């Protein structure tokens, strides 16, 4: 047995024992998992926009301080789903509770960064670029990751952003252009059923312009890649079928599109979707419950679909928000901008369960939680353990990776 194949064997048997505990995957699929090359791995990022109230997501259910500071908003124990003696999910997160039970969800607590900024836009930029405002921010962490692995998607887009928002800063790169698509149906150029017209617009877009106008060159490269990406996608999404029912909402539809693209064999390695509305300054309870239900149900359906497509060893999911919210509720039955909060990683390859403690509710900083885990430590795990790339240049600093992937998934 060569060194390489013994490693494969050991890896697959270690993973196999985990599966016996949690059920779900056939050993043959795990064998395939062990043979995955890094370029076939996929990360799906879900961005929760507006600042998710972490304390009402992963709830310190028996904590006196929590109840005292949130007389209106504290969630009753009877209205929650147990995680541990001390912690519980919001009852709308049934999807996450099921994933946790199936051994497919890591809850990373107390994630943030030093000297927290409470502006949505600035804090989001910090998460996206790993840089502060006074630094020269020109690209995002995923953009830099894509540059390291560029050229491995065989002509497919290396990353895709789904949604109608502007493109996330995280995906910006000087070299790699990431397409944004609202829906597959809309992602085609009218008139291109006519071959002559299609040829003309592609040629017109492909012609390089001279130096001197950066903006024009940016538009030219973007136009050229948009037209070729639309051609590519429209011809590739034919083989998908699924028995999984997705919830009828924006996030569910986006994740179903992601599953379609993965199922059709696209070589794209990063998918990026967003869920907006977490800025709950007033009348929080109903709004927050609805968003969490959308999140939990959609992620659960997606991962079921990924299982069904026999792709679960390739797909990891990461969920974050720009900040958590203030511990104490405000007078409008809402919460103001805060700091640290939980992140989630999901999929068959993550170490399921709680990672890190809930920050203290009594030792606050300006009324906000103190983080103990830097978000870049989570990124470091994704970059090193999942994509086998070098984290330091991407994160612009040294960060110890959080231990969030199963040993069988690490390479």
């Amino acid at each position, binding site marked *: 047995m060569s060194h390489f194949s013994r490693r494969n064997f050991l890896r697959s048997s270690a993973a196999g024992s985990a599966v016996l505990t949690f059920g779900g995957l056939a050993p043959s699929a795990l064998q395939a998992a062990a043979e995955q090359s890094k370029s076939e791995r996929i990360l799906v990022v879900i961005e929760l926009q507006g600042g998710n109230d972490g304390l009402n997501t992963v709830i310190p259910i028996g904590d006196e301080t929590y109840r005292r500071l949130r007389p209106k908003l504290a969630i009753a124990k009877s209205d929650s789903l147990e995680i541990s003696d001390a912690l519980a999910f919001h009852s709308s997160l049934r999807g996450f509770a099921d994933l946790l039970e199936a051994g497919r969800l890591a809850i990373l607590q107390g994630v943030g960064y030093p000297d927290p*900024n*409470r*502006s*949505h*836009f*600035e804090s989001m930029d910090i998460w996206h670029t790993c840089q502060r*405002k006074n630094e020269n921010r020109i690209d995002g962490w995923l953009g830099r990751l894509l540059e390291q692995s560029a050229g491995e998607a065989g002509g497919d887009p290396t990353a895709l*952003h789904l949604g*109608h*928002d*502007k*493109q996330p800063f995280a995906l910006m790169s000087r070299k790699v*252009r*990431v*397409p*944004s*698509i*609202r829906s597959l149906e*809309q*992602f*085609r*150029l*009218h*008139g291109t059923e*006519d071959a*002559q*017209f299609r040829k*003309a*617009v592609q*040629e*017109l*877009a492909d*012609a390089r*312009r001279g130096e001197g*106008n*950066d*903006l*024009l060159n*940016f*538009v*030219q490269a*973007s*136009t050229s*890649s*948009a*037209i070729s*990406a*639309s051609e590519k996608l429209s011809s590739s999404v034919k083989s998908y079928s699924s028995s999984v029912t997705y919830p009828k909402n924006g996030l569910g539809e986006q994740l179903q599109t992601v599953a379609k693209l993965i199922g059709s064999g696209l070589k794209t390695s990063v998918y990026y979707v967003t869920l907006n509305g977490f*800025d709950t*300054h*007033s*009348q929080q309870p109903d709004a927050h419950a609805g968003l969490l239900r959308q999140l939990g149900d959609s992620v659960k359906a997606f991962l079921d679909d990924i299982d069904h497509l026999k792709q679960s060893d390739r797909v990891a999911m990461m969920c974050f928000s720009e900040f958590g919210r203030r511990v104490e*509720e*405000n*007078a*409008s039955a*809402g919460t*103001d*901008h805060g700091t640290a909060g939980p992140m989630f990683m999901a999929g068959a390859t993550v170490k399921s369960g709680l990672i890190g403690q809930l920050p203290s509710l009594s030792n606050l900083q*300006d009324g906000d939680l103190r983080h103990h885990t830097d978000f870049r430590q989570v990124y470091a795990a994704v970059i090193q353990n999942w994509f086998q790339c070098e984290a330091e240049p991407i994160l612009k600093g040294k960060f110890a990776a959080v231990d969030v992937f199963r040993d069988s998934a690490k390479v």
Partner: protein
Amino acid sequence: MNEIFDPDWAWSEFQPETETPWNIRTAAHLFRRAGFGATQNQLTTAAAKTPSAVVDELLAGPEPESFRAEMTSLSNAAIATGNVKQLSAWWAYRMFSTPMQLLEKMTLFWHGHFATSAEKVADGRLMLTQNELLRSFAFGDYNYCWRFHAIRNARVSRFRTNRKSHPNENYAREIMELFCLGEGNYTETDIRELARCFTGWEIRREEFRFNRYQHDDGKKTILHQTGDFGGEEGVKIVLAQKSAPEFIATKLVRFFVMDEPAPTVELIAPLALELRNSGMMIQPVLRRIFTSNLFYSPHAVGRKVRSPVELAVGLLRSLQGSTNAFDLAEEMLTLGQGLLYPPSVKGWDGGRTWINSSTLLGRSNLVRTLITNDKTRFGKTTLKQYLAAQKVTNPREIIDYLETVLFAVPVPEAARERVEALMKSRSDGSLIEGLHALCTIPEFQLG
């Protein structure tokens, strides 16, 4: 690329010369920026005047009484439908038919600045009131506008009563970060203190009210000033900051002059000073911008990414066009600039953020949809007849004509030949194919 401009040169009055002449193309630049676009005839007329005279006409008001009356009756009809999207269509219609383009463009600027979305305020009447308010102050006194805005925004914001025991920080943060100063020009303590000033503000039966029992009348320290301030006083302190006129001037330059590079504090200084000295009057600053050296220089011409509204309304206005306003508003929403539907309280970021593969395909599709919509008319007729009436008939003439009215960056010769070849290769429909192909080239995205 970080060019350093000499602020004195930048804002001195533009004197046409051989290198940067005043002609049809320069006039087209002015109309695209200080409005949406102009027809060949309008451009020829403007080129015969001085730039300064044309800018004065763009700034002159008020709107003709008959136009206002028509708009009022249309907006009332839109509201009566109960569908705010109809109001969005009304505004799109107003944009492509107004005799005062700059007023409309400036209203759009303020809409992006004091961004309130119909997504959150479903009441069309409130949205219309705010829209009319922004239009009435568009060229005027920014501080005065603010006093109204403060109250209106409170009306539409969702805190019911801002209680002194737990003030809601959201509005205070918006004022400092997004409306007046910009991130980095205040501290978290300033926000908490300003939030205390707004305690006692409440909405009762849809009306703004001051509830003195809920007002925190203690001392507050905002931006180094201490006193028992109320909400209006708090806003006044914020507006008196040095960074307030700088913030507005920077936004105006990015909106009207160039996307890149970001203007420096030094470049902005003369405009900020002018704003401060005039008590924050907008009109003189606009006049200064549109008659400046920088505005007509190669650093500005063609150096902005067209917003979806500029692209669509510009296409219509440059060819004397009109269309189904509801469809148009929907298309612009799809492309990321829904009128009355800004994506967040920060408004639209503009510049490169307009561009991604979806929006590029969408912008191209919009051109085809617009020219093939049965409701679209050019000079009350078809595009073909409109051009024929101006003796523009063969592919080469058509491309040249479209370039003059639609393009800020010249169409490269190779592209011109390629489009001409496409048009010549087919007997019918060549105009639609040609215009569509021409408007898909990268140059068309810049304005």
